[in-house]
């Protein structure tokens, strides 16, 4: 049945649909509804909800549950996500699947509680220490908040790694209609590596991240890198809008993409060949989306300029890449994006 849901509630409902067995969280605006929904509904669905004493505890509880082979999730925002970074590095280093939701708010520091996309670097480049990556999915609607949660659990188990849903305060707080009964299929993966009791196995399964022998550690890191390369080949995902003949392409993810789409439509009405590329996977970044020749790309973000660096790497100097951003909780303006498109079309954008 179609129902109106907050993005945060949709994430939580979809996680339960995906068979999440443990949720460990700590409240912080604007993601608290995820915890609240889980507190109410996860126990009645046979799972464990626990409000930890801090975000650090929560992420390390995730490590424990994931190591035991359970589907597990945590969520946070801003300062809370920063606290989790050490634990995320450990999860990546131990090859543990889990889903982490970041409902981004303005930073740095305590920042503010209004929506932002300024945690892109932290999510995509690795906020913790060491050579590791997360698969990062960027929903742009409440429906996608739900769908991508299911996808995140499937990907996490398939690739044995943490998957992050990078959302923002608007997507978390807003309500839209969602068909919570019509979500993608849940995939099930055997977890013979899990520390879930020795059973019939000859050896103990040990989940660890410490490798004092540098040769062994390098081997572990390189094998993980091979996996990341395979993921980059298989899972780049993006959405195109009016791109077939587009000369000026706006690229934006999440809620910003919806504002950019409206600007692109208005540019088309003015006779400018504009289009939109909306990255859906931020890691792996959809490099393939930027293969076609354009006159220019404008990267619009709710940050001081983060994804634009990956766009520049993808374009690799073939045509100009411009940036437009608002940050601190301020929203990109349709009018201002339109203005950028017009200036880029006239060659006046710098």
């Amino acid at each position: 049945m179609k129902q109106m849901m907050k993005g945060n509630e949709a994430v939580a409902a979809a996680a339960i649909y995906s068979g999440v067995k443990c949720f460990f969280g700590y409240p912080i605006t604007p993601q608290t509804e995820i915890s609240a929904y889980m507190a109410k509904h996860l126990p009645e669905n046979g799972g464990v909800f626990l409000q930890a004493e801090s975000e650090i505890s929560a992420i390390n509880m995730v490590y424990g549950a994931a190591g035991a082979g359970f589907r597990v999730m945590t969520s946070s925002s801003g300062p809370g996500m920063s606290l989790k970074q050490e634990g995320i590095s450990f999860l990546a280093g131990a090859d543990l699947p889990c889903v982490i939701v970041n409902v981004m708010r303005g930073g740095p520091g305590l920042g503010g509680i209004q929506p932002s996309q300024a945690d892109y670097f932290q999510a995509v480049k690795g906020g913790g220490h060491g050579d590791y990556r997360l698969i990062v999915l960027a929903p742009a609607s409440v429906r996608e908040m739900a769908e991508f949660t299911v996808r995140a659990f499937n990907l996490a188990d398939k690739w044995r790694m943490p998957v992050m849903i990078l959302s923002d305060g608007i997507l978390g707080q807003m309500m839209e209609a969602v068909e919570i009964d019509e979500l993608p299929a849940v995939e099930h993966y055997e977890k013979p590596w899990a520390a879930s009791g020795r059973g019939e196995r000859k050896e103990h399964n040990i989940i660890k991240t410490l490798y004092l022998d540098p040769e062994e550690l390098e081997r572990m890191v390189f094998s993980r890198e091979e996996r990341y390369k395979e993921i980059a080949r298989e899972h780049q995902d993006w959405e195109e809008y009016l791109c077939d003949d587009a000369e000026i392409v706006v690229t934006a993810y999440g809620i910003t993409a919806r504002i950019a789409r409206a600007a692109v439509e208005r540019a088309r009405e003015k006779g400018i060949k504009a289009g939109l590329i909306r990255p859906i996977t931020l890691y792996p970044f959809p490099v393939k989306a930027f293969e076609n020749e354009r006159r220019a790309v404008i990267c619009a973000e709710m940050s001081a300029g983060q994804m634009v660096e990956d766009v520049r790497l993808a374009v690799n100097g073939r045509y100009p890449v411009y940036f437009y951003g608002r940050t601190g909780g301020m929203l990109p303006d349709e009018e201002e994006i339109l203005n950028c498109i017009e200036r880029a079309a006239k060659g006046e954008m710098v």
Partner: protein
Amino acid sequence: MEYRIIISGFGGQGVLFAGKVVAQAAMLSGYEASWLPSYGPEMRGGTANCQLVISDKPVGSPVVRTADVLIAMNMPSLTKFMDKTNGIIVTDERFAKFCDSPAQVISLNTDICNGGAKFEGLTNMIMLGAMIAKTGILGISEVIAAINRIAKGAAAAIDRAAVEYGWGCVGERVCAS
């Protein structure tokens, strides 16, 4: 068709609930709809608002910069949003006289007129009823169905009555564009 609405008032006046009714009714009417609340310090007291977009195609930005309709349940809300409204403002007659806006103002006595007192605390539903009567963007039966989906028992009954009362306060009807 795209309709952008701001509902604003004090925390506790049912700003967010009124918005949820509108969004739910829009969904039941087959429209795409988004509901975006203010979630800052407002929800801990002070003015709160929610922004709604109702459209016959997928909603782009859920943020309302210029509203087609403003429901202003207190003076600060009217002051804050009247200049961002091109269309219709629904407010109480106590505030309407201070309204300096080219928008069409629907001025309601939400407290006492014609038995309105029994709807004390239901300014949100009265103004919602008046808004749908004036704009025609949603049918009253869809709004009633929406209330039945998200409110329960006696609260739902009084909400329905207040919407119908507000609906009755507005005589002349104009069609939604």
